[in-house]
């Protein structure tokens, strides 16, 4: 078991966003969590990357280590979990290259960094042509590529992806997901949350359905795609 989440509960101020959810991700898998607006998908990822405090009773382990004993930056640099946040959140004032270099900040293996950067440019060749450009001036698709590229340079055991399809035209969306499949084949486990359930379920092998802070369904992607409730609620009938 690479990632194990047990009884994860998170509150914002006094509003409970997650009511104690449990799920697991195996090494090498692509797993998705689908759900409507406000279901708690982003909250789940933020809790795993330790951006948010969790409530008592929550247990989370990664590779056998207690996730809760790591601060957010160490989750990346020591455990190898990267997080592509909602809305990409690039540093618009830095160039493409600087964004990538910053993602490698805590790494101490210059050769490995160089190899990973080359790999990013191999997957997203459009970024290579734009290394000196400010990230804020990239197109939406290029920004998404850079956000994924940044995650690849920062850590590669587990990648948490928050709505990678958001704002992308169908064709570009497909090529981003193909790139992510390639990244997964090279050994990075992926946990993706999506509102675009169809895309996510075709991409992932397994999925969970999150509804108002509770996991209500889980199964293999084919099962979920065929499930009448999922069809009605998330796949447009």
């Amino acid at each position, binding site marked *: 078991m690479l990632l194990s989440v047990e009884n994860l509960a998170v509150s914002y101020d006094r509003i409970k966003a997650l009511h104690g959810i449990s799920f697991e991700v195996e090494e090498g898998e692509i797993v998705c969590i689908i759900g409507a607006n406000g279901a708690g998908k982003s909250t789940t990822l*933020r809790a795993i*990357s*330790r*951006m948010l405090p969790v409530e008592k009773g929550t247990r989370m382990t990664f590779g056998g280590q207690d996730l809760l004993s790591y*601060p*957010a*930056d*160490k989750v*990346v*640099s020591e455990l190898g979990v*990267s*997080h592509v*946040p*909602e809305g990409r*959140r690039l*540093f*618009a*004032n*830095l160039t493409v290259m*600087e964004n990538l*270099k*910053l*993602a490698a*900040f*805590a*790494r101490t293996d210059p050769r490995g960094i160089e190899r990973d950067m080359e790999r990013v440019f191999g997957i997203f060749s459009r970024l290579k042509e734009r290394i000196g450009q400010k990230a804020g001036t990239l197109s939406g698709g290029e920004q998404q590529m850079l956000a994924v590229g*940044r995650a690849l340079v*920062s*850590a590669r055991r587990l990648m948490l992806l928050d709505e990678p399809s958001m704002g992308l035209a169908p064709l570009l969306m497909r090529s981003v997901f193909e790139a992510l499949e390639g990244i997964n084949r090279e050994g990075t486990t992926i946990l993706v949350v999506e509102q675009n359930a169809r895309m996510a379920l075709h991409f992932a092998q397994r999925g969970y359905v999150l509804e108002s802070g509770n996991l209500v369904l889980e199964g293999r992607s084919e099962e979920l795609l065929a499930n009448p409730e999922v069809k009605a609620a998330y796949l447009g009938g």
Partner: protein
Amino acid sequence: MAFFMQQVVNALQRGSFYALIALGYSMVYGVLMLFNFAHGDVFMVGAYIGFFVSSGLLALSAVGFLSLPTGVTLALVLVLTLIISMLLNSVVGMLVERIGYRPLRGAPRASAAITGLMIGIILETSNLALLGAQRRSFPDLIPGETIHVLGVNITPKKIVIVAVSLLLMFGLHLFVRRTKWGMAMRAMAYDYVVVPLMGVSINTIALLTFGLGSALAAAAGILYGVAYPVLDPYMGVLFGWKAFVAAIVGGRGSVLGAGLAGFLLGFIEIFVAAFLPSTMRDLIAFSIILVILTFRPHGFFGEPYSAQLRL
């Protein structure tokens, strides 16, 4: 003309102090969205550290620790004083961050502002408690005859003060632009929330920012001590406020802006005092600043928006 040039030289010296201090305000504000109102007092502490370090070094050389020509000894003492005091004062700045501000991260901004004021008062009064009310006079590390160039009086002090200040500012500029640490500071200024997702510790960058600003404040304190050799525990109050104003006029978090605005303030002050009674200096200088801010509310180089969002 000679009179005018003389004022320019004086303004460059005065502006150097404001610029060096303003950089510390500006960096902390840019990176951490925090007005460090204790910074003027950190400047004062830096001046005192410089006083003790330089007096100590001079005492060592007096007992024959170093037997070099006087000029060389003094130059060496100045350089060592700068280096040692900047290091020590950066530790002071980091302690201010660690003890004063870190526990308040995420608290309302007003709490942090009040904390800054309190830390400032604590620094002033502990200085008073430890060292007593007597004023200290800073050793003259840059003696030398006044040189007359085309009717303008220039002292070696002024040349060294302006040169060292410019050198430090250029060094800071290179650090922020060229190193990965500077890059992390710029990233944090844009959006600190996602910085940990890059594997970068916010606490480390916060300490670095305070450390750098305080090191520059120590340099300002030493150069100030050389120019105006009387130190007292409250020397950082009004001076700090003025440098703070320069940082705001320069623009949020802009290193270049803070530097230039520091010099601008020096120019305004010196030129007002040159033509009008000196009692009107601050009144007119700050009125001019008020007008500038009315037309450029984000300062000269500030960005009119902030990308700081919640994740």
